[in-house]
Each structure stands twice: as structure tokens, then as C-alpha cells.
């Protein structure tokens, strides 16, 4: 599903962001990506949805190799993924249902399929009763649920979540995490970047830890890779 092979990433201004990153994520897997701020978590996630390209090495996501990805291929790849962020990134001037519908409209979904799908997704994330509310009228947890519903519109193979609970209180965090588990249980692979050690411990999913651009722990291999700091 996701394959990183000896990936290096250099930024012109800030230097090396990733060094020799190698890992694979299988279909339907749930993976935590953790590590301190600036460790390279977001860079890894950005490479998965093709917002960044590796300087060297290979990244393959859902059968798309980043090295050969053209402009239109990026759009097609992203239709196989769902992405959520810490800051939700909702359109403030549209209701919850309009935010979700927007993602379907701009990817060319048939008009008659949009309303039922939006209703189903909002029900799935527990927000059917707040479909007409605007983001400003929703709590942080509810906004993140709308963002997750939007990420699910194209029935993604992988859900990328970059610190999805970073702005939420404990109760909302538990709710959003439970939702991500349910999505994963339904067959979607989830890759979630988080600082929340308690959450990682409680869940007992595979954990990849990065530090200074290197993988220092991958619980799937049960030991730090050779040469890791």
C-alpha cells in the first residue's frame, strides 16, 4: 500500500529532513507515526500525498511511484487517499454538509450521488444532527469529525492524519480516535502522526518513531533498525 525505500529529503534552506527512511504499510494496517517536533513526521506524510517529493529514494503509494507522478496523477492519487490535519482546514463559510459535499463536487462525483453520500458520511462520524451547522458553530472535536467525513468521500485506501487530536481535549481526542479505529476496522489503512504517547500506549498499534529525519523505532520489526541513533 505504502512503500518508502531509502528515502532522503533535503530542503534548500533547512537542509536534510529525512535520511534513509525505509518502511512499508500494508493494506488495512493502523500505524502511529511519532517523534518530537521537527523530526520529519509531516514530511513523511506529505510525501504520501505527494505534496513533497523525495530527493533520492523511492516512494510508492497505492501503486503510484512518486518519481514518475505527473500533475494529473497527483490528483488521481489523492482521490485514493484521505487527509486530515490538526487545524481541520474546513471552509468557514460553508456548512458541515457543504464542506463534505464540496470534496465530492470538485472530484466530479455524479450530482445525484452527493446528497445521500454526504448524509451517510455525517451519520458515520456522528454528526447527522449538525449537518447544517457552520464550522464556527461546532466544537473542535466536531470540526475534526467533519474533516474526517470529508476525507472519506472517495472511500480512500489510506487515511493520513497529521496530529488529528493535537487541538482537542481528552474527551474529543478519545472520540476522534475511536472514529479512526472504526474506519480502520472497515478496511481503510490509517497512518496517524501524533505526539500523544498515552494514546499510542493504550491502542497497541504498530508505531514508527522518527527522530532527526531517521526511523529510530519500528515496532513491526520489534527492534530499532541497524545504525539508528
Amino acid at each position, binding site marked *: 500500500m505504502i512503500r518508502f525505500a531509502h528515502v532522503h529529503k533535503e530542503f534548500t534552506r533547512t537542509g536534510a529532513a529525512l535520511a534513509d527512511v525505509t518502511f512499508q504499510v500494508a493494506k488495512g494496517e493502523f500505524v502511529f507515526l511519532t517523534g518530537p517536533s521537527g523530526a520529519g513526521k509531516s514530511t513523511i506524510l506529505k510525501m504520501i500525498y505527494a505534496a513533497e517529493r523525495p530527493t533520492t529514494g523511492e516512494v510508492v503509494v497505492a501503486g503510484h511511484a512518486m518519481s514518475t507522478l505527473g500533475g494529473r496523477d497527483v490528483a*488521481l492519487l*489523492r482521490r485514493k487517499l484521505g487527509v486530515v490535519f490538526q487545524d481541520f*482546514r474546513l471552509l468557514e463559510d460553508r456548512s458541515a454538509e457543504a464542506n463534505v459535499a464540496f470534496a465530492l*463536487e470538485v*472530484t466530479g462525483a455524479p450530482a445525484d450521488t452527493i446528497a445521500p453520500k454526504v448524509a451517510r458520511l455525517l451519520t458515520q462520524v456522528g454528526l447527522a444532527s449538525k449537518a447544517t451547522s457552520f464550522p464556527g458553530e461546532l466544537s473542535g472535536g466536531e470540526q475534526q469529525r467533519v474533516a474526517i467525513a*470529508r476525507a472519506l468521500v472517495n472511500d480512500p485506501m489510506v487515511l493520513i492524519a497529521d496530529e488529528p487530536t493535537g487541538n482537542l481535549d481528552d474527551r474529543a481526542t478519545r472520540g476522534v480516535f475511536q472514529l479512526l479505529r472504526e474506519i480502520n476496522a472497515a478496511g481503510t489503512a490509517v497512518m496517524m502522526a501524533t505526539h500523544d504517547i498515552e494514546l499510542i500506549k493504550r491502542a497497541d498499534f504498530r508505531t514508527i518513531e522518527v527522530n532527526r529525519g531517521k526511523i529510530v523505532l519500528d515496532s513491526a520489526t520489534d527492534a530499532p533498525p541497524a545504525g539508528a541513533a
Partner: protein
Amino acid sequence: MLALREAVRGLRRAPLLSALSVTTIAFSLFAFGLFGLVAINIRQTLQQVEERVEIRAFIAEGTPIEASSALLGDVQAFPEVQSAMLVSPRDALERARSELKEFADIFEEGLLPSSIDVHLREGFRDPVTMRAVAARLDAYDFVDEVRYGEEWVEKLYRLRTIAGLAGTTLGVTFAVVAMIIIGATIRMTVLARTREIEVMRLVGATDGFIRAPFLIEGCVKGVLGGACALLLTYVAHQALTRWVMSASFFDTRLAVLGLASGALLGLLGSAVSVGRHLRER
């Protein structure tokens, strides 16, 4: 359809910004329109003056009418010649009396010689061609003298060249400045919708799909701005005609061209702004 809906939404959501864009486009095109108005009037005036320029070949006294007629036939066959006319001494006298009324009683019968008056085609009224045609006429034995106001023609031609060059330079400058201003205004609307573009890209909308509403919006603003500019130019023209001097206004073709330029400027400005935004992200 969605692109159209999003374009309308974009216009309605930020009415102040939209109005600012339209106003900027309108004033940029208004400046261009005023310049255009001056340019077409100068051009028209010069053309009118040019049309009056003629070469006059005076025929020697006693030349048989057959020879003069043969010369007229020759001249009419010159490729540069638009029209040529044989003017008899009597006609020359009539003309002189009507053109210079205060000296009408001075002109006497037989004072003026007959002549062949030649008008050149448009595009052949430059000093070099006029000199060449005059020389060809002068080569005939029975042509006494050829006059065409050489110095005056050269001045007129120089004026036309300068006006043409200045017009092109100023026109291009105005167009470029208008495009830069319009591009910057549209960039503001693009920046105001950064989040929307980001979401579109994130969920897998193609760049073409993302561009479409902005292009429609730019085009609509361009047409509205163009229409306002046309109206302002018309008002300025009316004021000029009423209080200063009579001047020509754009014909329908030029007015439509003005609106089309507005649409094109809006479209290009949007295309460049969105393109730049998409490349930067």
C-alpha cells in the same frame, strides 16, 4: 456548471473585493480608452489632411488637348494613383476664385494654366513616392512645372510617423500597466481563497478544475470593467465634444473590441495569478 456556481459564489462572497477588481479593471481600461480616443482622433485628422495632399502638374500653354488627355490616361494608369483630373484654365480660375474669395477680382481669364491634379492612394502618400511620381510627370516635355508642397508633405509624414510610434509605445505601455494592475487585483482574490484551493487540491481536484471558476470570475470582472470603462470613456467624449471640440468616438467594432479586451485581460490576469499560485504550492 459547478465552476460557474463557484465563480458566482466567489463574486458574491467578497463583494467589496469583487467591486475593487471591477473598478481597477474599469479605470485601467478607461485610461487606455482615453488614450485610444486621442489616438484615433489624431489619426483621423492626419488622414483627412493627407487626403487633401495632391500633386499638380501644370501644362504648358498651347499644348494640344489630345496630349493633355494622353498624359491624363498615363497618370491614371500609375499604380500609386487613386485619381487624376484634367483641370482647364477656366476651371482653375473658378476654383481660385472660390478658394480665395477676397482676391476674386484680381484673377483674370487666362491667368492660370491648365493642370493635371493627382491624388495618390493611401499608403503611397509618403514623400519618396510623391517625389517619384512628380519626377515622372515632370519628364513630359509639355509639363511646365510640378508642385506638391514637398516641405509640407515631409513635415506631415514625419508627424504621422512620430504619432504612430508614440501611439504604439504608449498603447503597449498602457496595456502592460493595465495587465499588471488587473493581475495584482485578481491575485488578491486568489489569495483570499487559498484555503479553498488547498482543500480542492487535497481531495484530488485537477488543476484545470481548480482554475475554471477563477477564469470565469476573471472574465466576468473583465467584461464588467470593460463596460464601465466604455461608459466612462463615452461620458468623457461627450464632455469633450460639448465643451472643448468635436471628436470622434469608437465605432461598434472598436467598442466590442474594448469589451473583448476587458474579458481577455480578466481571463489572462486570472490564469497567470492562479497558475502562479498553483505552482507555488
